[in-house]
């Protein structure tokens, strides 16, 4: 890797769900929690702020959100202040920018906040906001939002490989079960057996309600710094060792094979290559299960199993505790909900907490060293991957 080593040295997540709180109130809440969780953090040494926020213009009728967030947090950044938008991957995009800023020496201590307020009085308006993620004047008028697109992925995967609804439910059951260990998860208190999942109503055939992540309000925040300062904050920094992204298309006409996500393969190869490890070295992965079928295709694109065998990988529990590696111990987007800008940051918080052994035992990965975080955005047209290594006590 070029540049200075960069680590996440602390982080926190608000309660995810249908929150009785505004966009700004969610930012204040995560800021207060961050300074409680990272008592070594001093506001005047935070030189930069990166805000992952996908659609505040649509969901909160608010632009120019980076300085607004700074004010809510009680910060006055003096080096870099920016908002990152990459739809469902906005949070990871903000972390990547902070990483680049610190690696280059432009920033020494940066805060990343990811936030989204998605539940509105009119959910049709919220659904319209989701539709804007697509190529709006062309695919939008037909009614293109995420569920019908990922439903087509599921349909093709079932057709080409014989993947079953039961295998989709295996992904959802695992992630909801992990969410039962995570008090910040939207569905922390709800249990979903595979049978129950298979009886939920169809949202976009063949996907049922339990195959889909939800519209969620929430925020998450992390602190990043360089190797010069990391030990001031923690004995177990999560070092960023690799990063990769790939943007293959935007209009749905160019999606190509719906079941072969080559963009993820390329982004992961870039990130793992920079980290100098292979997929088999990972102890856990936080991947973008916006839909149950997404996690199945991601197993394959990451090379955890051969193409077409992702459904079996799920049903056999190979992404579960005791499997090949633990996938989505946080509870995933299915169990935690998916506040667009917050998701990628909350995944990084999980990695930090897994490395520092501060998650409940039921989802603690034993002695993890390597973790991968993946976000897709839009119609899986963009894939973003980061690889983390656990730092050891000096």
């Amino acid at each position, binding site marked *: 890797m070029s540049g200075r080593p960069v680590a996440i040295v602390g982080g926190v997540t608000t309660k995810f769900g249908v929150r009785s709180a505004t966009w700004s109130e969610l930012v204040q809440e995560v800021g207060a929690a961050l300074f409680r969780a990272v008592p070594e953090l001093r506001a005047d040494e935070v030189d930069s702020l990166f805000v992952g926020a996908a659609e505040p213009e649509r969901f909160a009728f608010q632009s120019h959100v980076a300085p607004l967030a700074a004010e809510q947090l009680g910060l006055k950044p003096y080096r870099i202040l920016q908002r990152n938008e990459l739809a469902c991957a906005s949070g990871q995009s903000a972390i990547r920018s902070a990483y680049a800023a610190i690696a280059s020496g432009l920033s020494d201590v940066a805060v990343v906040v990811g936030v989204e307020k998605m539940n509105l009085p009119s959910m049709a308006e919220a659904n319209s906001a989701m539709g804007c993620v697509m190529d709006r*004047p062309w695919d939008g008028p037909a009614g293109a939002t995420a569920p019908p697109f990922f439903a087509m992925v599921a349909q093709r995967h079932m057709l080409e490989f014989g993947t079953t609804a039961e295998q989709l439910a295996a992904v959802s059951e695992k992630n909801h079960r992990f969410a039962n260990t995570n008090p910040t998860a939207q569905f922390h208190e709800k249990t979903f057996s595979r049978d129950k999942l298979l009886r939920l109503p169809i949202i976009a055939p063949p996907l049922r309600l339990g195959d889909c992540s939800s519209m969620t309000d929430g925020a998450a925040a992390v602190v990043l710094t360089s190797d010069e300062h990391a030990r001031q904050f923690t004995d177990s920094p999560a070092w960023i060792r690799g990063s990769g992204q790939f943007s293959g298309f935007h209009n749905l006409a160019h999606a190509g094979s*719906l079941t072969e996500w080559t963009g993820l393969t390329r982004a992961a190869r870039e990130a793992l290559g920079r980290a100098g490890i292979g997929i088999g070295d990972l102890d856990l992965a936080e991947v973008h299960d916006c839909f149950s079928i997404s996690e199945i295709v991601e197993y394959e694109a990451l090379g955890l199993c051969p193409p077409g065998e992702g459904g079996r990988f799920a049903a056999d529990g190979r992404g579960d505790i005791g499997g090949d590696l633990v996938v989505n111990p946080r509870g995933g987007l299915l169990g935690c909900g998916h506040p667009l800008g917050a998701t990628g940051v909350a995944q990084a918080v999980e990695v930090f907490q897994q490395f520092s052994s501060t998650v409940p035992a039921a989802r603690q990965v034993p002695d993890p060293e390597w973790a991968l975080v993946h976000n897709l955005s839009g119609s899986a047209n963009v894939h973003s991957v980061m690889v983390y290594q656990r730092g050891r006590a000096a």
Partner: protein
Amino acid sequence: MSSEPRARRTSASVIASSPKPSETHPTEVPAAAPATKPVEKRPFLLDFFPLETPDQTRLHRFYERLREGRLSTTRCPRDGELHWPPRTACPTCRTEELEWVDLPEHGHVYAFSAVLVGAPLGMEAEVPFAVGLVDLDGVPLRLFGRIEGRPWTELRVGEPVRTEAYDIGDGRMFYRFRTTD
């Protein structure tokens, strides 16, 4: 039915050309298919349908040709690349001198689903509706769109469909697919 993109009337410039109705074009319909229901005027920022007039878009010919019943796109005369959606500059050689070609009327469903809940604003009354990716016959294009005709419960992958231009109810045109039986 032709399986090749028709390029009988092409224009050297997307911007300067004007629409010229055809009397014989195979995909022409006598009048635009009637809208499913009138679309109420919505503020632009809440409206998925594009602004189609020459003062708003350099691709206004696309919509003018839709009114003639012709679903068309641009092609690069230099490298022959057929675009979707239509463009004002070729993404490969970057020329801005593109030509209009009509697209095949027939295609087959590659994948489909349906919106049963969670429709965007203005589409709630249309639920349930089917959407899908359609391989157009004879050209390397797979278009996404609404599928009208038989309900989603009776669709299948490989289903033959045809393209259809329609008036959305406020003077604007759009395209969709319809089952052939």
